[in-house]
């Protein structure tokens, strides 16, 4: 926006008469402080400082009020900590693979609504509902769905004669992670659907009409025009989903606590356990885990952004 040089006649309205403040886009130091200081204080005090402190703590063993400097010991221990590596593996599996499921489901659902089914507006609102539920609610619901004796899943399988498939979904180390991924996808499908739908609706109508004249049926339109033009949105959704899953805690904690046998142990559940559940109650080691993980997450996001985010704007 261009700055306006306000005639000096109006300057007496401002508290200060300094000429530079005639520009409405400049404010005095005092005004900026009033606006920014509270938020910055909260940020520094409750986000920045704690982050630094966690990093700082990682070089200590902290039991109660005693802090013993141990240098890089925590980090060395971390490298050989098998549980940690299992949790990293689980979290990575989740973070890299599940978003594909999320985005594809979201796109398919959005296309179904875009095709102009009746009650599309109702379906859009209905399908979005799980996004609003807390993880506690979702976890409890799906624990009941997965229940071996009377859960919906096994009951349905038994009812249609597929008894052999009825399993202990959360109790079998081979199935538990998949079960959690499905649960998590159930909650978030609606979100991806809404974003994809909005993106599809914002595609220029005339380009789609041009493709119709170019002999594109639905399949060709999807493959050659719609999906390529949606690429920025789809990749954005992937990255958002990725970030979300790198942080996941609530769902896992309530449904499996990281079990059975660490099949669903994620970095966040492991940090929680080491910090608050173990008898040693040493806060230094989990701080080290948290610090490492912080670096990993940030690096992953930056790398993913470089790799996937399209640099050229699809201008239309």
């Amino acid at each position, binding site marked *: 926006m261009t700055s306006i040089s306000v005639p000096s006649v109006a300057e007496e309205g401002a508290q200060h008469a300094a000429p530079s403040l005639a520009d409405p886009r400049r404010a005095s130091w005092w005004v900026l402080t009033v606006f920014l200081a509270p938020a910055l204080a909260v940020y520094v005090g409750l986000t920045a400082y704690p982050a630094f402190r966690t990093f700082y703590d990682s070089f200590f063993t902290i039991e109660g009020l005693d802090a013993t400097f141990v240098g890089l010991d925590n980090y060395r221990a971390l490298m050989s900590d098998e549980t940690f590596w299992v949790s990293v593996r689980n979290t990575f599996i989740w973070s890299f693979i599940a978003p594909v499921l999320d985005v594809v489901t979201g796109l398919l659902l959005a296309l179904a609504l875009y095709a102009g089914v009746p009650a599309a507006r109702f379906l859009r609102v209905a399908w979005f509902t799980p996004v609003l539920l807390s993880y506690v609610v979702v976890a409890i619901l799906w624990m009941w769905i997965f229940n071996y004796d009377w859960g919906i899943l096994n009951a349905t399988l038994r009812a249609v004669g597929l008894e052999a498939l009825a399993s202990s979904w959360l109790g079998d180390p081979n199935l538990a992670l998949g079960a959690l991924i499905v649960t998590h996808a159930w909650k978030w499908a609606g979100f991806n659907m809404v974003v994809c739908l909005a993106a599809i609706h914002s595609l*220029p109508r005339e380009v789609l009409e041009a493709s*119709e004249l170019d002999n594109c049926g639905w399949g060709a339109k999807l493959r050659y025009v719609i999906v390529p033009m949606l690429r920025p949105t789809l990749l954005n959704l992937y990255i958002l989903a990725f970030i979300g899953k790198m942080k996941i805690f609530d769902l896992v904690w309530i449904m499996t606590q990281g079990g059975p046998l660490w099949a669903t142990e994620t970095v966040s559940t492991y940090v929680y356990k080491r910090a608050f559940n173990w008898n040693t109650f040493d806060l230094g080691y989990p701080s080290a885990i948290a610090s490492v993980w912080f670096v990993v997450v940030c690096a992953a996001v930056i790398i993913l952004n470089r790799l996937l985010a399209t640099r050229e704007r699809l201008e239309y």
Partner: protein
Amino acid sequence: MAVVTLDKLSKQYGPTGPVVVDKVDLHIGDGEFMVLLGPSGCGKSTTLRMIAGLEEISSGKLSIGDRVVNQVPAKDRDIAMVFQSYALYPHMSVADNLAFGLRRRNFAAAEIERRVQDAANILGLTPLLTRKPSALSGGQRQRVALGRAMVREPMVFLFDEPLSNLDAALRVNTRSEIIKQHKRLGSTMIYVTHDQVEAMTMGTRICVMNAGRVAQIGAPLDVYWEPADTFVARFLGSPPMNLATAAVVAVDDSHVARSPSVETALTRWSPQVLGNLADQKVTIGVRAEDLHINKAALGGEPAGHVRGRTIAVEPLGAETLLLVEIESGVEWTARLPRHVPVAIDETVDLYFPANAVFVFDAMTGRAIIGEKRRDIRQ
């Protein structure tokens, strides 16, 4: 034969919705350049889109070539369209944009290559083939859109206000480009615009539309010199035709049109016709370029006379526009040569050839047809 026929074609949104295209009858001959002209909302774009197959036809019959195509999907109608917003595929290069339609139709690679190269050469796109649309200017994009239609070698080309998004200079260039291609290809082209300059310069025939209906169809100059109603009369021509309400009065053994500020003989109509109109009100029209401030310029021909008060004088260099208030609320514009020594608020007398007058029914606006003007060379 690339003939397009519209038979009472109509479009209505929903059973109780607005009728945006109302029983349009139009026959477009092989190789013709037909311009659909009209103000925004007159239904011309909707008509074009019905021809293209992008809008469903509510009623009426549409034929392309010798078959009825109401139910035929757009891609099978052998038409190509150039959109107002170019509608290029933003993620594909120019070459891919040109080739896309052919690839989807399973043309042989060699044939695709040939057609793309030909179109690129003709339109000057060869250095741009690897670029994406975002790296092109508006004029270049429109040429790519034109090329995309050309490679299809369709039976009919459709244009939906293709020049609206271009600036004035580019518009002139692209306009002549399209005309050039029409001469070269000899294809049937249907062109929608609201700009009468485009219509006058490009069309073999123009179809003026108003509120969903056809107002008049004809060659551009025919429509200009013999408008079918006051709407067409005022839509073509800049400044618009001057109109005034007058009464037809018998004087001696002829008739004149007379109003408080205008009086003119009516030389192009037979006594019977004028007799029927006697003592009735009509709308008379005179084009701005037919008004003269110097009566002598008319030679000795019968002349009409209008008197008014000057409201504005607009010297444009090559000509001067004079705005005159002839009655309360009625303004006439005269196009006068070079410089005119008239001041604002002056009373001024303007003269016009009597056979330059148009007469329209005061109620319906429809033209009351007389003899052709003898001073216009067709």
